[in-house]
């Protein structure tokens, strides 16, 4: 049974102190815009009802945050480990500079999801977006895996300029390659069964979290986008 923290009347710092003070799982009730929930924490299990403020789980270093509503901007900013689950949509720049851990979004993500996501050794961050993604998906991406499933919402599965500046990692979108315009330094091809097998555990986890049907999800074409080079801009300079 989670320890309940009533968020009403608490500011971000006060709420942070209460979360930090309680060793077991906590439930933040009636959240309304308090920022930085779980920021820089590890080993905590936090459930949030109400609307959490920006930078939820920034620098998260382990543990789990579950939000039973939409979340705002900068979820999982510079996250290093742990899991964030959002039963709703997320705002802009979800998973900015994320290096490890997993983010599961039931709904859609705003602009610049996964911007500058990177990986290092055993740290391979994963972000699964059940709905659609805004423009600049995976901008500057240097590592990790982004999955966009297009299960909710309408229109293109991702906005304009996906994967600009991408130089590592991969993006899998539940669509055909020709549905999106990728930049020159990225190769986008129909995903192979092996490509899908590699991300199957994340899809299973997504289905488990949100009660979705894996077979239904897989019964559609997928596109895999990967960069051609880890050094995309080498030719741009001349020593002076």
């Amino acid at each position, binding site marked *: 049974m989670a320890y309940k923290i009533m968020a009403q009347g608490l500011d971000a710092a006060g709420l942070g102190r209460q979360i930090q003070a309680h060793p077991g799982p906590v439930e933040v009730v009636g959240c309304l815009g308090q920022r930085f929930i779980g920021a820089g924490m590890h080993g905590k299990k936090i459930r949030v009802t109400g609307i959490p403020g920006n930078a939820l789980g920034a620098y998260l270093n382990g543990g789990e945050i579950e939000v039973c509503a939409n979340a705002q901007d900068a979820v999982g900013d510079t996250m290093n480990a742990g899991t964030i689950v959002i039963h709703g949509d997320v705002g802009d720049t979800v998973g900015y500079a994320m290096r490890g851990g997993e983010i599961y979004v039931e709904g859609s993500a705003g602009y610049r999801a996964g911007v500058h996501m990177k990986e290092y050794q055993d740290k391979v961050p994963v972000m699964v977006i059940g709905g659609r993604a805004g423009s600049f998906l995976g901008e500057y991406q240097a590592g990790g895996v982004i999955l966009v499933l297009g299960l909710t919402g309408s229109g293109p599965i991702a906005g304009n300029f996906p994967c600009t500046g991408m130089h590592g990692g991969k993006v899998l979108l539940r669509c055909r390659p020709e549905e999106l315009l990728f930049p020159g330094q990225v190769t986008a091809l129909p995903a192979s069964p092996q490509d899908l097998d590699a991300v199957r555990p994340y899809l299973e986890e997504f289905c488990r979290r949100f009660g979705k049907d894996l077979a239904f999800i897989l019964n559609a074409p997928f596109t895999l986008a990967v960069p051609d080079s880890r050094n995309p801009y080498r030719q741009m*300079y001349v020593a002076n």
Partner: protein
Amino acid sequence: MGQWEVYPEFEVVRSSARCTKCLGCVAQCANGVHQYDGVQLTCDSAKCVDCHRCVAMCPTRALKIVKADCALRENSNWDSQTIKEIFKQAQSGGVLLSSMGTPKPYPVYWDKLLLNASQVTNPSIDPLREPMETRVCLGKKPDKPQRGPDGRFTCELPPQLKLAMPMLFSAMSYGSVSYNAHEALARAAEELGVYYNTGEGGLHEDFYAYSPNTIVQVASGRFGVHEGYLNAGAAIEIKMGQGAKPGIGGHLPGTKVGADISRTRMIPEGSDAISPAPHHDIYSIEDLRQLVYSLKQSTHHKKPVIVKVAAVHNIAAIASGIARSGADIIAIDGFRGGTGAAPTRIRDNVGIPIELALAAVDQRLRDEGIRNQVGIIAGGSIRSSADVAKAIALGADAVYIATAALLALGCHLCRTCQTGMCNWGIATQRPELVARLDPKEGAKRLVNLMTAWNHEIMEMLGGMGINSIEALRGNRLMLRGIGLTAKELEILGVAHAGE
């Protein structure tokens, strides 16, 4: 020479009378200027960057490097540098990339400001015998002191950085400079009671030992940023911009990302380390507040947060916004500041001088009644203790020093850091070059330099009849301009000499 080559800028001159063919120069030059075919020693001057490593290491002083006298026809408008740059771009199609601060002849206002001294009406102070304080506490000061129920002060302050002298080593990432350079800076900072700054490349595991004297930087690439890193630093610096390249991100080429740098930055070996131009979670001033407080929250409000910005046209308003965004300290980097690599055109044409930026910021913060809410660090080509004293009199709490520190470590300002072939072991990741910089000796030289500057600052303070550095801060009556226009004097907030 081919049709599209120009005559080299420098000539390496070897005195055959003095040369003993010890071949030290061949071993020392990573650029391959000196070659030995078993009989004859030859020089390919085209490869020379004028770093003076071979000159310094030649045991018989047989080498010198001179400016080539093979010149293009003189032209004040189309000077030879401009012409050569056009040749390079016509050849390569590339963006010109340069290193260190701009060499262009922009005004250096430090050299147009003069300090005061006491005569008769109040006494000068002898710093060798009388107490003379240069300690600085950098950080937010409360608007009103708080007392407990017993009427005594609670003595609780927002986190402060305590400096034994008003100077810190500014950000240089591991990657842009070498492991040994970082070690020298860390050791010196510890011994001096000041701070060095990791730059945006993370903190090497070996240097956590120096964390009480370390400022950890968070830049747009977030390299090496994690919970342990944030909590390791004495302060956290958010890098919004750099004087040498305002508005431009960073780019460490994959060739420089070896195993050790890969570990420190937490990115794969050989992968480019790209820092986006903006922080993608900061598109507006209120977003800065979000990043500042997310860092504070993650470090339990125990670390001061520095926001570093490049000096740009609207710097006073920007600084005011930063002060209101929860930052404890603002670092302003003037456009003459150094860099490991920056597009030439940006470096030489974007931003404003630190002197004007600092004066404008200090005055604006005072006009708005919030100068006590932030510390100010000024950087971007602080070349001597006189520059330090003048910066403090204009309104800085302390200064950032980088190029001068690199010079102390052996840099000869050849401005080719971007090649990664630094013969002095500073701006390189090649193990055989890095080994040339002894971190202990380097630390000693840094300590020497800073200690000497601190003594000189005390001498200048004593001359002004001031015995504590804080009484010089913003004390613009101690400055006079020389050869400045009325507008320049107005912005600097100083009177002209003779007034």
